[in-house]
């Protein structure tokens, strides 16, 4: 049985829509005065972070606490123990603490998978970003944000409940090579029926990207003007990638910004309804200008709030039940 969330590809379309629907209900509870729910009382969620990520960790921490789970933050950064042993020993420690779920961020691609399948822990494993591989909850919160904006329901706060993203055009721009966000988004958005276009300099495209379920181009203006996207997602570009020591993937900030940055003039190419997204943290003036980041189209701040709701939904779905599959006909008579 599948009781982990390791990859955006773990979810089929119906499951992904169900996660977004639960997120919608969670978001509704977060607009109340009292935001805390008793749902996961007595459960323990461990945030196991081998890499710094204040945003993702606090988002998971807020999600778990809003559901009344106990949260243990385990920062394993800087540990001198050798890699394999370190992960195993840490997992055994967490198991001894009674972790019901382990939210893991690791610099090595595949670490969450190892943690989930090595038999070191009985808890559910949630991938909070592994290497250049995947970041499924980021993809879920992005899909949730897109659905809220582009699939508004008639009235009420339940934007788009039950709907997928069939036919929505999403353009993802930037350092695809190093981005787990891009990979998870391509997988999940494709599952939900969206059409994804990746735009990146040739040096920042991964080997084998042509086999991904998306279009790939190196011309941003063409993708924006001709592609008429419904959502444009800018990826973070690290300045270190420019320097020779960091790989020398692009020659200068100015050149990157000119060809792949989203600024005022490119904003004008977009259709009226198009939203501008960024997983954060932004490099203002590099991949995104202040005009774009602060424009009314920008959902960047909203994405942070949506992240908590989506992570609440994931924790709820993994931890609230007894872990079994329901019988096809459970007995009736609401008590």
């Amino acid at each position, binding site marked *: 049985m599948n009781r982990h969330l390791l990859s955006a590809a773990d979810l089929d379309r119906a499951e992904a829509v169900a996660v977004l629907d639960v997120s919608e209900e969670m978001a509704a509870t977060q607009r109340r005065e009292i935001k805390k729910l008793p749902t996961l009382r007595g459960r323990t969620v461990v945030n196991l972070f081998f890499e710094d990520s204040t945003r993702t960790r606090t988002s998971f921490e807020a999600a778990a606490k809003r559901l009344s789970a106990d949260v243990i933050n385990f920062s394993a950064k800087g540990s001198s123990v050798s890699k394999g042993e370190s992960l195993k020993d840490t997992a055994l420690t967490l198991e001894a603490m009674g972790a019901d779920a382990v939210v893991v961020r690791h610099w090595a691609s595949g670490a969450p998978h190892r943690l989930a399948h090595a038999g070191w822990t009985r808890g559910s494993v949630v991938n909070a970003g592994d290497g250049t591989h995947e970041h499924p909850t980021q993809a879920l919160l992005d899909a949730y944000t897109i659905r809220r904006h582009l699939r508004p329901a008639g009235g009420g706060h339940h934007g788009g409940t039950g709907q997928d993203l069939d036919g929505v055009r999403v353009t993802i721009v930037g350092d695809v090579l190093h981005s787990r966000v891009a990979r998870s988004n391509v997988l999940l958005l494709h599952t939900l029926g969206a059409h994804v276009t990746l735009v990146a300099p040739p040096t920042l495209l991964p080997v084998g990207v042509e086999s991904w379920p998306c279009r790939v181009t190196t011309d941003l203006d063409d993708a924006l003007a001709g592609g008429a996207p419904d959502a444009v997602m800018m990826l973070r570009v690290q300045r270190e990638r420019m320097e020779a020591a960091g790989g020398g993937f692009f020659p200068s900030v100015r050149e990157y910004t000119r060809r792949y940055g989203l600024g005022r003039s490119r904003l004008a190419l977009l259709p009226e309804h198009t939203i501008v997204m960024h997983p954060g943290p932004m490099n203002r003036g590099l991949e995104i200008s202040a005009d774009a980041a602060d424009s009314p189209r920008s959902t960047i701040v909203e994405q942070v709030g949506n992240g908590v709701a989506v992570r609440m939904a994931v924790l*709820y779905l993994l931890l609230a039940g007894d872990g079994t599959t329901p019988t096809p006909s459970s007995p009736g008579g609401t008590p």
Partner: protein
Amino acid sequence: MSAARDAARDPAREQDAGPVVGGRVLLEGADIHRALTRIAHELLEANKGPADLLLLGIPTRGVPLAQRLAQRLLEVEGTAVPTGSLDVTMYRDDLRRHPTRTLLPTELPPGGLDDKVVVLVDDVLYSGRTIRAALDALSDLGRPRAVRLAVLVDRGHRELPIRADHVGKNLPTSAAERVSVLLAERDGRDAVVLSPPPPAGTAGGRA
């Protein structure tokens, strides 16, 4: 996440217990209509009019029942009583004993619950645990002046010190039997059906 899959495949599995076969119809549509009309009058009498009343249906079938009650109140008093829904799933005490349950919308009328007389509306009162969860949920949403409970059917077997203020019909049942409330809004017809215990091997009564 298999829980997501279950929720996706069967969004209302708790409420939709499959086709009702071999059951005995205890209340017909007209009986349900009369019971709701009487409850509406009782509500008005107990509250000395519709002032401050607020109806909250517990999904799924409590919601259309609350709407029907509101309609009756409108017909009797000419006052639109605010109506909403209250999903209690995240407050249940038995979440860990069942597969993950689907969340359903909680929609409060504008103005909130503070100082209102909130009437919880559900289809069947059984163990009382749903109502216990509803009371917890209410206390997170506001501070009503009073909380009342109206149910279409009280089938007994309470496990908590909870009783209904307004009951459509008291139905003595055995705990093994199944009571199904069918409403036109969801099921195409109105009826309350008592089914015999399911054959051995299938799940027993939900507490």
